[in-house]
């Protein structure tokens, strides 16, 4: 019995640093914020257990409904605009023969720039009036200058385009790794059987990266659900809440009102939604596979 544990010691020792870091930086704050969401607090000092009071007040806040539905709209547009982009990029780069390294680095470069800097850069692109970059470009085609980010129905897709530009590169690299893991013999065999480009994509490439795409889909939903600094910098949630999000609500509770327990309550709500979505998705996918 003891011997068995002895054998494990080395394993535990290897895991120990990671476990400590996880406990300290992830699990403890996570639990603390769940606890906090049930208390009233001054700053981060808990005062009194209030049950679901914070949740009730958060749900009644005038901005909650807009933040809630917008977050889903962000997710929807990010899947429409952003989900296929990295797959296309990866396939194209995979097919390129010359300068492959150059393109691989190029698509990743936007990730290297600090997020806030990119966001500020995009405010110049979407800027209203004759000095906005997008307006300058469209101006050459005879389109009069627009105040892009004030269009309530366009503002989320515009922000999603910026998010896609920024983060598609990293996902592309993951797909690229997946594509390069495909056995070239499959393609050779297909070519011998007379399969064209589309047939090869349809019957080899797509099935081979299907599992990867499924995982990345969930990861994308999780990360877009937490959209924060993009609307914060570009629009501050406006116009009239058209681009506000749940995380922006968390930010405003925490950093504008110093009301950390309500911020915690909204975070817990976000976590619950994400857990439900992931569970639902996995269930659907499993049913399909059977």
């Amino acid at each position, binding site marked *: 019995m003891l011997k068995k544990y002895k054998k494990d010691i080395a394993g535990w020792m290897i895991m120990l640093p990671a476990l400590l870091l996880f406990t300290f930086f992830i699990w403890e704050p996570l639990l603390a914020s769940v606890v906090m969401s049930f208390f009233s607090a*001054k*700053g*981060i*000092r808990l005062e009194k257990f209030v049950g679901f009071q914070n949740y009730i*007040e958060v749900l*009644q*806040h*005038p901005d909650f409904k807009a933040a809630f539905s917008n977050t889903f709209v962000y997710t929807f547009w990010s899947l429409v605009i952003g989900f296929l982009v990295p797959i296309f990029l990866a396939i194209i780069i995979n097919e390129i023969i010359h300068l492959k390294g150059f393109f691989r680095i190029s698509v990743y470069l936007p990730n290297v720039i600090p997020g806030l800097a990119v966001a500020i850069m995009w*405010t110049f692109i979407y*800027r*209203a*009036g*004759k*000095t906005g970059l997008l307006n300058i470009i469209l101006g050459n085609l005879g389109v009069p*200058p627009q*105040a892009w*980010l*004030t*269009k*309530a129905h366009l503002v989320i897709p515009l922000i999603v385009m910026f998010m896609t530009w920024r983060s598609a590169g990293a996902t592309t690299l993951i797909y690229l790794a997946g594509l390069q893991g495909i056995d070239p013999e499959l393609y050779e065999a297909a070519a011998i059987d007379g399969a064209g480009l589309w047939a090869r994509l349809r019957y080899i490439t797509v099935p081979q990266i299907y599992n990867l795409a499924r995982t990345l889909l969930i990861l994308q939903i999780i990360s877009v659900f937490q959209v924060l600094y993009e609307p914060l910098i570009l*629009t*501050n949630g*406006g*116009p*009239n*809440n058209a681009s506000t999000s749940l995380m922006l609500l968390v930010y405003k509770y*925490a*950093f*504008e*009102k*110093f009301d*950390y327990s309500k911020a915690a309550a909204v975070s817990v709500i976000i976590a619950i939604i994400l857990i439900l979505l992931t569970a639902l998705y996995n269930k659907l996918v499993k049913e399909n596979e059977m």
Partner: protein
Amino acid sequence: MGKKIAILLLFVGMLFLVGNNPVLAQKKVVLKLGMWPEPTLKSDIEMFEKWKKEFEKKYPNVQVVPATYKYATDTFVPLAESGNLPTIFETWFTEPQKLIDGKFVRDITVELRRKGWDKLMNPSVKQILSKGVRIYGVPRDAYALGMYVNVELFEKAGLVNPDGTPKYPKTWDELAKTAKTIKDKTGRAGLCLLAKDNAGGWHFSQIAWNFGAKLQVQKSGKWYANLNSPEVVTAMNFIKDLKWKYDVLTDDPTSEDWGSGFEAIATGRAAMYLGAQDAVNQPTQVYGMPLDKLAIVPVPAGPKGHHYSLMGGTPYMFNAKATSDEVMAALNFLEIMGKAPVVTPESLAGMRADAENRVKNGIPVVPSFPAWIDPAWLKAQDDVVKEYRNVDMAFYNDYYNWIKQKGVLKSEEPYLTQDMYAELTKVLQAVVSNKNADVKKLLDTANSNFQKLLDMYVNKK
């Protein structure tokens, strides 16, 4: 005998050692100054170094430690909770009540009474810094909203008096026309309206007041939102006209905030902008506007003659964990800076240093808005301003004479002010981004939203 002397000497020597020993000596009071200037502001730092030297000479038991802290809402709570807040720090005029409620700042009533300053504070400013009868801060200066004018654009549009001062609009109606003339003649926006964040609602409440609006009313002990009254609707429709009928606003008001407004004035992106005298360094020092191109004039009056100026104060506040000695030391330091209601050779020198520094950095030396009501202090400050004057007061006189009139100054609305501004800002955003916005309907929604918050947090108690 010799032995006795030796023992005595040894004893004296020990005392001497103890006296020099920092651990055993009476512990020095450490004063951490949050308003210490940032490293890039060289001449400001020189000024503070001088004050520090003087202060430590006068109060040898206090050690002054620079602890530059530029207040920001996302850094404040971690700093406060970890006990690393400076003894004294500057914050924004929006923050005091929130910081008092969160128990982040110290009650300094006792220390102020000991100094006698509690009676010298401008009552409206004191109200902003107090909860009940307890006082939590000291004003750095106070502000009263006026209107910043880019004189160059007025000149180009031919809107100048024979003495060179701008022909500024006296009513909001005139403002629309003036703005239109400027837009037609120069192609630049007449007015910079804010609609990015809560500052939008803040400026709008100033406009709405002059249209005769009361934004919060109390009836039989309960507070009611009054954001959809006919006066507010008229004011908001006026904004809508500025955007869609006259087209005199900057390209995208929803991207304008407090700072970008000053940038717009300084760079000639807009000709007029609501702002107070305490921010004169923004267009000039920060954005390089020449001193002779700036004027501050009264806010236009409303259609029925309402003519208020929204006032507030920029406070110094104190670390909740500071000792009484530390607070006293901080107050004494304010004396040396000339920011306290006392007239001493040091405080006079402090005022002079400040004025000199303004001249050096191209900031208008104009009277500050009196945060203290001590006549001797007011006179001393006035004298220093006159001595260092670097602008033509003709460009400012109307504004200063106006805010001295009775009944002009008006403090911000009392409850959940920031939430009210947030609701109004959302309406502003809808109005300036949608030509067909239904103003009444938007204000109805804002009103019921804000009422919900009032019921949840104010009327419940």
